């Protein structure tokens, strides 16, 4: 009788749990509550710890910085001269690009605003099964779920879950991450898939006739509506025809060193802004044809 009662109780608890799980999967109510309490508390506990760690490592680094300052200064001056000459060469191309964009009315991503964030920790707790990091920005401070994260080298991932001042970011190396990309030179499209921490990335669905080459940079295509177009994501490490599918087997490595992240930038408010409307000159007419007369107003 007792074992029967235990079985009935276990059954009721299982049904209750599955009901709660299904309800939460649809509404995300419990996830939001847990993020607002748990993630916020974890962020509050980690922020002072990270500050102390930064202070100690910063002091140590500054000592070595002073030692190496002269050599680094000379190297940076050389780099600056090199960059200035490259900037002058690229300046004319940029001006031409701007003119052409205005001419054909292409959309441009003018409203992307980078917001700096500090990495607090990597994956935390038994429930953190995805390859992720925790940052010190939440939905109050610009990190809404879905917001892309970058460094000066390229894409890092996107915000998965956010509390008011802390959030969890899904890295592009996670096995469940998928990003629509294209190659910078050959313009071959594909889907970049993660294969786990420390592993190379995989580019799926690249056509066999694509002229994609090793060392080519992969950029976000924006076709997945998750990331704005043109962010560098990865560099191609190997290209070969696949033995199992009708596509190419392409491998790539992330542009960003995801194991040693300290600061990142959130690209907030990723809306597409169109350039100002050009004055309406009417429909395009063959050369020499006169413009139609405006209809008389009554």
């Amino acid at each position, binding site marked *: 009788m007792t074992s029967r009662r235990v079985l009935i109780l276990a059954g009721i608890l299982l049904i209750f*749990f599955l009901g*709660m*799980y299904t309800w*939460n*999967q649809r509404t995300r109510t*419990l*996830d939001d*509550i*847990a*993020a*607002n*309490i*748990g*993630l*916020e*508390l*974890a962020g509050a*506990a*980690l922020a002072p*710890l990270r500050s102390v760690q930064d202070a100690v490592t910063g002091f140590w680094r500054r000592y070595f910085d002073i030692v190496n300052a002269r050599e680094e200064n000379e190297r940076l001056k050389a780099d600056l001269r090199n960059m200035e000459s490259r900037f002058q060469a690229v300046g004319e191309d940029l001006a031409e690009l701007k003119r052409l964009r205005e001419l054909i009315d292409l959309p441009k991503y003018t409203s992307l605003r980078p917001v700096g964030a500090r990495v*607090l*920790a*990597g*994956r*935390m*707790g*038994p*429930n*953190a*099964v*995805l390859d*992720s990091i*925790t940052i010190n920005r939440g939905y109050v401070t610009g990190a809404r779920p879905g917001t892309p994260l970058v460094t000066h080298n390229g894409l890092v991932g996107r915000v*998965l*879950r956010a*509390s008011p001042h802390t959030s*969890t970011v*899904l890295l592009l190396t996670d*096995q*469940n991450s998928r990003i629509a990309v294209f190659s910078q030179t050959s313009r071959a499209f594909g889907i970049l898939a993660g294969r*786990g921490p420390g592993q190379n990335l995989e580019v799926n669905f690249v056509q066999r006739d694509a002229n994609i080459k090793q060392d080519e940079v992969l950029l976000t295509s924006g076709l997945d509506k998750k990331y704005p177009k043109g962010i560098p994501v990865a560099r191609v490490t190997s290209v070969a025809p696949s033995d199992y599918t009708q596509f190419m087997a392409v491998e790539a490595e992330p542009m960003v060193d995801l194991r040693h992240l300290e600061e990142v930038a959130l690209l907030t408010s990723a809306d597409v802004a169109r350039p100002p409307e050009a004055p309406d000159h009417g429909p395009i007419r063959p050369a020499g044809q006169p413009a139609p007369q405006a209809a008389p107003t009554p």
Partner: protein
Amino acid sequence: MNSARNLCWWVLFISAAVALQAFVPGLDVLVAGLLILLQERDYKNMFWLLPLFISIQEGMGTRFFGGTVVWYAMVIVLFKLGQWLFEVESFIFVFLLSACLAVPCYTIDWLMAPLQNLTFNIQETLDKSLVQALFLPVAWRVLSMTRQWIRTDNDVEK
């Protein structure tokens, strides 16, 4: 037991647990606190600490809500079963309990992955279960020693 000291101890424990979890991915440090609560039969503090532990673990996690609830429920059930056979404050009991907990630790990840359509990594989950099993007795030992700090003379006499 001095309640102010006790509260301070739990605040310090939670802060240290979160910090340690930041350095060891996948590790659950808070479960050692749950074990302390069960051993001391401190159900009054468990009433607010257990939901807090669940909120912290679920909030830091990347799965849908539910995995930690099952995990802590398994810890309580196995503790209550072991209570009939062993002295709960002995190291052997904690060691055996922690070895047994490696099984639900692995099984919960295996069961939860398809529910959320996630890829299940066998090697990573095995490593995580093993680290958790080895960590718990050590953490329990350290925490038990620090608990003496908040015990008053009356508690010792009892």
